[in-house]
């Protein structure tokens, strides 16, 4: 999920209104954006993603920064849109996944490994955040799905980088217990 050195030229073309450049940016960042939004608001993820892109468009020409900065800007807008949607809809943090959904993945030999192999990306993300608190899930999503640094996540969530690190450590240990092959085997 990175354009690398090509990002600068693609961004300049997109700022001039080149449709091909916008298409490159969309193909690069839309999957992660949609996964993040689906993990938070699965019913409104597609609509929110479209709103995010349209909200970025009028200000795209004035953007100045690198790829990490653009990614942070994209997910900042997405987070604000998500907050506004939740405020309006008073929706829940995530859509709960029914337990029957995972029954088909159970196996006798190595059910965890086999199940993980067949799980799609969005389903895995849903499982990850389902075992975390809201704050921990947000930090993990921004760190994993959005590929943001600790500093960026701290800026977006209004926390200190140390608090973000502590939070992600606790989340990983909890997830490690959940996804431990040993625990699943038993």
């Amino acid at each position, binding site marked *: *999920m990175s354009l690398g050195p090509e990002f600068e030229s693609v961004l300049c073309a*997109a*700022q*001039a*209104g*080149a*449709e091909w450049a*916008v*298409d490159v940016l*969309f*193909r690069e960042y*839309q*999957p992660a954006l*949609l*996964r993040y939004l689906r993990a938070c608001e699965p019913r409104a993820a*597609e609509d929110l993603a*479209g709103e995010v*892109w*349209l909200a*970025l*468009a*009028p200000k*795209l*020409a*004035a953007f100045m920064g690198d790829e990490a900065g653009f990614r942070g800007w994209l997910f900042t807008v997405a987070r604000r849109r998500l907050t506004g949607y939740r405020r309006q809809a008073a929706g829940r943090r995530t859509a709960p996944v029914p337990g029957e959904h995972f029954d088909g993945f159970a196996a006798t030999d190595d059910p*965890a*490994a086999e199940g*993980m192999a067949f*799980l*799609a*990306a*969005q389903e*895995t*993300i849903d*499982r*990850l955040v389902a075992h975390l608190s809201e704050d921990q899930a947000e930090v*993990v999503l921004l*760190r*994993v*799905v959005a*590929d943001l640094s*600790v500093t960026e996540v701290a800026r977006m969530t209004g926390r200190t980088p140390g608090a973000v*690190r502590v939070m*992600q*450590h606790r989340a*990983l*240990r909890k*997830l*490690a*217990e*959940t*996804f*431990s*092959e*040993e625990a*699943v085997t*038993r």
Partner: protein
Amino acid sequence: MSDWRDLDGVRQPLPLDDRTTDRLLAGMVDPDDAPPGYAGLARALGTARGPVEAGELVGRDRIVAAVAAAVAEASPPTTVSIPLRRRSMVSRLFGTKVAAAAMTTVLLATGAAAATGSLPGAAQDAANAVADRVGVTLPLGDSTDVVPASTQGKDAQTARDARLAEHDADEAPADGSGDVVTDPLTDVPVVPDDDSENGTPASQEGVNAHIVRDLRNSDDPAADSTLDWKALRDQFHAEHKAEHASDPAPAADDAQARRDEHLATVEQEKAERDAAKDARPADDADDQGDDVADDDNADDQGDDVADDDDADEDESGKGQTHEHDDDEHEDDEADAPAAG
């Protein structure tokens, strides 16, 4: 004794350092190389960061086109627009100042030309009319050499001269009826102060009233807009002064003649009463009982005097007021000693 691995639920994943945590979250740790207890998590995180799946680019063409159009529409190049906007602002301010200076210059030049009477005839007349309304006197223009466009082919000056000449033959209504006339200089309603004998206005307001009435009765719509009040007023005075100089029967001579006639009548009645007194002794001797009749005669004489007064009023009161009669009687009393 049992192995430590038998303590299910007691073992906890080892804490990770920051670098390993960052690599794990970034999907850079292979599950086989993951720290103990983190292999499953490493695999899950790798799956979460997997490649694009079906359904994740739904609506791509529509969203890309909308975003590109919005970017092209709402984003002029910043580095170019700022200098252009500044130049546009400067040029607009400069243009406004130049326009204001040109307008001021034109107004000052026109005012100076109007003050010195250098404008063409019609323009000078218009400026004069405007200045008269604010109480400023400007030199008169020569409007006869230029025909104003507002007259639409008519010579407005010639038409006004003709109407002023016809004004000599017109007499103002004695009862003051007609249109309400206002002073063109003050816009105050003016009652014509005409001379009772020949309809000549005796005051400045009367002159203005006559001029306004004449022009309002005219059909020339441009007369009011091109009116030179002072010139018309002066011309009107000059014409009526010449008329009075050639008048063969002044009003003062008529009054003197009436006073002489009245005095002659009084003298004649007095002579008749003296003659009657001379004849009375003979009547007393003949008839002592005619006192009442004598008194009646005396009353009759008094009545005759009263009747004479009424006759005087009838003769001299044609179209005149009682105030005028009183003035005549006072004149009679004042002239009586000299006439007697």
